[in-house]
Every structure is written in C-alpha cells, then in structure tokens.
C-alpha cells in the first residue's frame, strides 16, 4: 500500500466514521412523550367500537419519519384489521388550512384498509392524548385502559423490526410483554414555543 496515501485515507476513515456515528445517533434519537392518559379520554371525539381495542396514531402530515410509522401500521393492520379500531390523526396546527394536511402521508394512511384517517384541527384530539411526537401510537383496550404507548419504528423514519410493533402484536395476541412502551421516532407535533399539554 502506498504509505503516502495512508494518512489521508485514515483521516477520511475517521471523518466518515464520525459521520456514520452522527447519522446513527440522529436516527436513534427518540422524540418526546407526554403523560399519556391511562384511560380513554372522556372528551375524545374518536369513535370506538364496542368489544374491540382502539389504536390511535398521532401524526404530523408532513413529517417524513411518519412514513415509516404508517408502513409499520399497515403491517400491523394486515394481521389485526378485523380485531381493532384504528385511527390516524393528522394534526392541523392552528392557522394552517385544511388542505395543508392533505399530503402523501394522508393518502398513504387513507390507503391502509381499516384505518380511519382524521384531520385533527388545532391538534385538539392529539392534545387530549398528550401526543407530542408524530408516529406516536396508543393502544387502548376495548374497556378503555391504555395497553401500549410508543412508536412503531426502530429508528427515525426507519422501517423494519422494532420493539413497539412487536409489543403491540404480542399484546394483541395476548402474550405478556415486559414493557408496554417504546421510543417514538418522529417530528414534534407542536412547535417549540407552543404550549404542550401533558408534557412530562
């Protein structure tokens, strides 16, 4: 090997190694999670079907990371579509037009069978569930108790095997899980200067 080139190659390796680390670090940094109500919020306008658990995903209509969450949701519903009620809420921040929510994510969510896609005007519904990060999934029992709260991707915008999905699937199969949460990877639903209800 040409030793004259060894030094610049080593420097380059360090640089790109650092880049890989930064990328992984970024991708694996979860968003905030608020104090999720342990019981189905009384004021919620979301419809529930008696005798079936209800799944709620709070989403930002323009968060690119949420595309992976919707993909994983599709995987989940492909198996349990008939056994639960699923809602995907796309927040419509105050001041933003209705059409602002009609993004490709909306169309993706609308394309998933068994999903109720809703515009969450002024993020009121999300606020009831104390949602802070796009892609946050909540699973409530038919009786209204919270069974799971967390993300269903392994990293920011990353599809594939992940803890959240595995735990939800286990819950739905009736298998005991060690934990009923998982990190949520996605964009903040609220701007930094907005008051965040239920922030922990």
């Amino acid at each position: 090997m040409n030793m004259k080139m060894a030094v610049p190659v080593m420097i380059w390796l360090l640089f790109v190694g650092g880049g890989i680390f930064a990328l992984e670090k970024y991708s694996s940094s979860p968003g905030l999670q608020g104090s999720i109500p342990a019981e189905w919020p009384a004021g919620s306008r979301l419809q529930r079907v008696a005798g079936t658990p209800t799944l709620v995903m709070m989403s930002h209509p323009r968060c690119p990371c949420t595309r992976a969450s919707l993909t994983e949701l599709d995987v989940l519903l492909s198996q349990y579509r008939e056994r639960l009620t699923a809602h995907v809420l796309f927040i419509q921040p105050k001041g933003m037009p209705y059409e602002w929510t009609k993004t490709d994510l909306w169309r993706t969510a609308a394309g998933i069978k068994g999903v109720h896609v809703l515009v969450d005007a002024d993020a009121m519904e999300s606020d009831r569930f104390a949602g802070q990060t796009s892609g946050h999934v909540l699973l409530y029992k038919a009786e209204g108790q919270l069974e799971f709260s967390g993300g269903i991707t392994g990293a920011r915008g990353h599809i594939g095997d992940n803890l959240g999905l595995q735990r939800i699937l286990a819950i739905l199969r009736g298998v005991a899980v060690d934990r009923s949460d998982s990190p949520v990877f996605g964009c903040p639903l609220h701007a930094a200067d907005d008051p965040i209800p239920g922030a922990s």
Partner: protein
Amino acid sequence: MITEITGRSDEIDSRVETLFERNMLVIFKRTDRMFAYLMAGQWLFGILIALVYSPYTWSGKAYAMHAHVYFAIVFGGAISSLPILLAILRPGQPITRYTIAIAQMLWSGLLIHLTGGRIETHFHVFGSLAFLAFYRDPYVLIPATIVVSLDHFLRGIFWPESVYGITNPVWWRFLEHAFWVAFENVFLIVSIRESRRESRAIARRQIDLEVVNTTVESLVYERTSELATSREQYKALLETTLSIPWEMDLASLRFTYVGPQAEAILGYPQSLWLTEEFLVMHVHPDDQQSIFQFRNLESSGKAEVELRLLSVDGKWVWMRSVMSCGTNLNARPVVRGIMLDVTEHRKLQSELAQAQKLESVGRLAAGIAHEINTPVQFVGDSVHFIREGVQDLTKLIIKYRSGSESQPRFSEEKFSEIQQAEEDIDLPYLLEKMPKAVDRALNGLEHVATIVRSMKEFAHPDQKEKVGIDLNQSIASTLMIARNECKYVADVETDFGDLPAVMCHGGEINQAVLNIVINAAHAIADHIAGTNHRGCIRVCTRREDDDAVIAISDTGGGIPDAIQDKIFDPFFTTKEVGRGTGQGLAIARSIVMDKHGGTLDFETEIGEGTTFYIRLPIDGISMVAMAHETHSVR
C-alpha cells in the same frame, strides 16, 4: 529458429504474467473510473432522495431543513470525495479500490438511512459487492465485508433496536448479516477466480499471438532483407559493371530501359536513351541495317550484334549486344540484352594484327639474315679473291706493256691489234677504276655483313640462365637495327664507357633498349614535325658501383606531367593506331625490373627532351628491389 519462435517456457510465463498484470491494471483503472462516476452519481442521488423523501423536519407548523439533506450533502460528499480523488490521482492502485470498496458500503448505509430503511435499498449492499467484483480482485471484497459487518456489529452494540428491532440481541447477531454478505462473496470470488483464469488464458493467447507475430515479422524482415540484398546484388551486378542492360520495344525500336552505365559510356543522359529514334539517330550509317534486323528475331530467339554508336563527344563507340526476344508485362514483344563497349577490344584487335604482322616481318628478317649470312660470306671471300686477282693481273698487264714496248715480241700488225684492243676497253680507265670498284663492293659486303651480324645478335635466342654480355656491343647492334627508325629524324651518338660483362638475358635487354630508342625516335619525329631540324639520340653507358647504367637521351618534346604516371602502363600510348601498341615501355620495364632486378627511371623536361636510365646489376643479382616507379623530373 524454432527456439526463437517459441521462446523459453519461463520467459513466456513471465511475459504472460506481465501482460496479465497490465490487463488487470487496465481493468482496475477502468473500474476506478466507473466507481468515480458512481460515487458522484450516488452523491447526487442521495441528495435527491433526501430532498424528495425528507426535505424538511417539522415542529407543528414550523419547519427546517431535514438532517438527511445535510447528511446527504456533507456526509455523502465526504464519502465520495476521496474515492473520486484517488480514482483520478491514483488510478489502478490497491488503496484506491479498497477505499472505493469502503465508500461504496458506506453509501449503502447512507442510502438505507435516506430511504427510511427500505428493504429494497438493502439490495444496494449486494449490488455494490457485485459491482466491486468488476475489479476481479477478490481482496477488494474484504474491506467491503468488514465495513458491513462492523456497521452491524457496532450498531448492534450501541443501537440494537435500529438494526435488529430488539434491545438486547446476542453479540454475534451481526454475523447473521455478515453471513449473507459472505454468501454472496463466495459466488463472487468463484466468479472472480474464473474471470482471472480466463484473463490469464487470454493473455497467454495474446502472448502466443505476439510471439507468432514477432516470428512472422522477423521472418518477413529477414526475407525482405534477403530480397533487398538480392535486389541490390542484382542491381549492382546489372548496373555497376561495364555491361549496359537494356530493353527495347520491338515495334518502335525504342529503348524502354537502359542501365545507368549507358550515361557514362556514351555521355547521354538516361532519359535521352529512352526517347523515340534515339537508336536510329545515333547508330553508324553502315550499321543502320543491323538494328532493323532486330525485328527479324524470332520469339525467344537470340543474337549477337556489333554496331557503332555516336558518343556525345563525337566519337564512334563500338558496342556489342547479346540479346534475346521476349515479352514485357503488357505482353508486348521486346528485345532484352546486354551491351558492352568493345571499342578498346576492337582497337586491340587491330593492334594485335599489326603486331602479328610485325612479328612475321621480324621473323622473316631474321630468317633472311640467317640465309644471307652464308652467301654474303662466300661472296665477300670471292670478291676479296677477285680484288687480289685484279691487283695481280694489273701488275702483270703493266709489266707486259712495258716489256712489249721496249722489246716488241709481237709483229707490228699484232701489236697494233693489241693497242687497238686496249683503246677499245679503255684499259687505263679500267686499271684505275677496277680496284676501286672491288673495294666498294667489299665495303658494301662488309656493311651487309655488319647488319646481318647485328640482326643475329639482336635476335639473340633467349637463354634460361643469364650470361655475361658485352653490353656496349649489344647496344651497338641494337642501334644498328634501329638505324632505319632514327636516320631520318635524328643523329645517333654513342658514348660507351668501360663495362665488364654484364650478367643478363642479352636478347631481352636489346629489346628494352630498342623499345626506348624507337620511342625516342618517335618523340623527336613528333617534336620536329614540320621543321627542317634534326634531333639527336644519345646513348651512353657507364659503370656506377656494382651497376651498369645505360642512359638513352632524346631531344623530343618531353613527357607531360599528366601522363608521367601512366607511361609504363600496358597499352598506354599517345601514338595513333598502327604506330604503337602502348606495350613498349611496359615491356621494357618488365624486362629491366622484373627479370633483371634493375631499375628503369626517366628524367624529362617539356620541350627539351627525355632521358631514360636503365640500371642493371652487373653480377645479375639484385639485392634490393629498387623503387620501381620512382622518377625525377627536371
């Protein structure tokens, strides 16, 4: 030759390996270049993917540029930059392709991130490995595999959920991923080995082909050289001899080719020879008929012709042609031949005829001299006897007359008859003139006898061994022989010194002296032509140490500088045809120097004359070969 063609096996192997390495280097460089483009393309693609899939990150209604875009631009640029740089600056080097392999795997990781971990993007890893196999260097797969394995290993430690979807995978979980990479590597390595084997086989075929080509080229070069040499030899043979090769169109009698010698012999440029009517215009009128007889040559017929051609300086040059009929490349009938300048040959033939004639005359003269000698002797003896008889008779007659006058014994009548008879025959006159007439006859006979003796001495038969000769006597005899050549133009003077007998071949020395004396007479004749003057030929002999020296001087015009070096050359002559053969001085030199070990020099002065010096060893033994051609000029 076979050894040269095939070469040594290890040498061939070495050449094959060199070519293989060279071809591999070409592949390395070409693949480096492809990856350089790919690196740039991936960079742009990564930025595009980031801009399309994740242009912004949002917080409520606020947004900012997504980190993926920055990663695509900065990190992607960093990944691609060094491989591109190395591909440009260090193409073909191992570090370049190993760096490219690392970068390509990093690109797989980045693209997977940018596309949200889509399973399809993972094919980039396997596609990249296959692409890296384009290098046909199995070692390039090692850094690629290490990068993939290390990525999964470290992520399994630090961010296990992002890669395995679980929080606590077993440490060797990364091997599962590495296995599939290795799995592909197996096929790629097999493929690479096969490819390298084929490349080596191609290199061997190429070397074999080069060896064959080299051999063929060598053979072609060798044959071409031989052909060129042969052509040069043929050309030299054809064009550097005195013979002029030529070809002539039979119908037009126009030369279509003549050798370059033609220009030197007749003085006309080659191009002029090739013009129409050249031959007709330059052939002697008496020989015109000969050239038209060319046309009578039958195909493949052969002939020899001698004819005269006019040279550029106006002289007729005899040319002998040997020719044959044929056809040229256009199937036109042509005559081809060799032409030789035989003017000199003709001249020699004439000289030879003259010499033969002179030889015959000489032989006749020698024979006559021999035959005359005996009768001249007995005629002389008889005349001597007659003279003595006449003297005696005269005395007797005088006594008779005196006795009869004082004491007449005859009758008066008888006495008167006697007196009448004496008056009738003019006895007093007879008595006065007859002895003188007999003396004149004797003088004449003596002169004839001298000439005959001289001729006999001159025509001294050649002895195998040298014998002691009275050189002065021998030269005197020779001068007698040459008298007729000299007497009309010059007086001959001699100054013979005391010489002992000189050991030599007398007849040959006489010949040498005669040739020089005749040359002297001719030189004087040329010099005094048109005047009433007479020249002088002076022949001196003297002894110098152990040598006898003969000096023959003439008062001719001298020898010009330009020909002084040539006068001893055979056949060199300034005389017209029939007067000299150009052999005289050459023969003289040969006799004096080669046969007697002497020297033959000359001194000359233009307008005054020339003196030739013959120096002969008296004892006939030459201890030192004198410088043969030295001469001095006054």
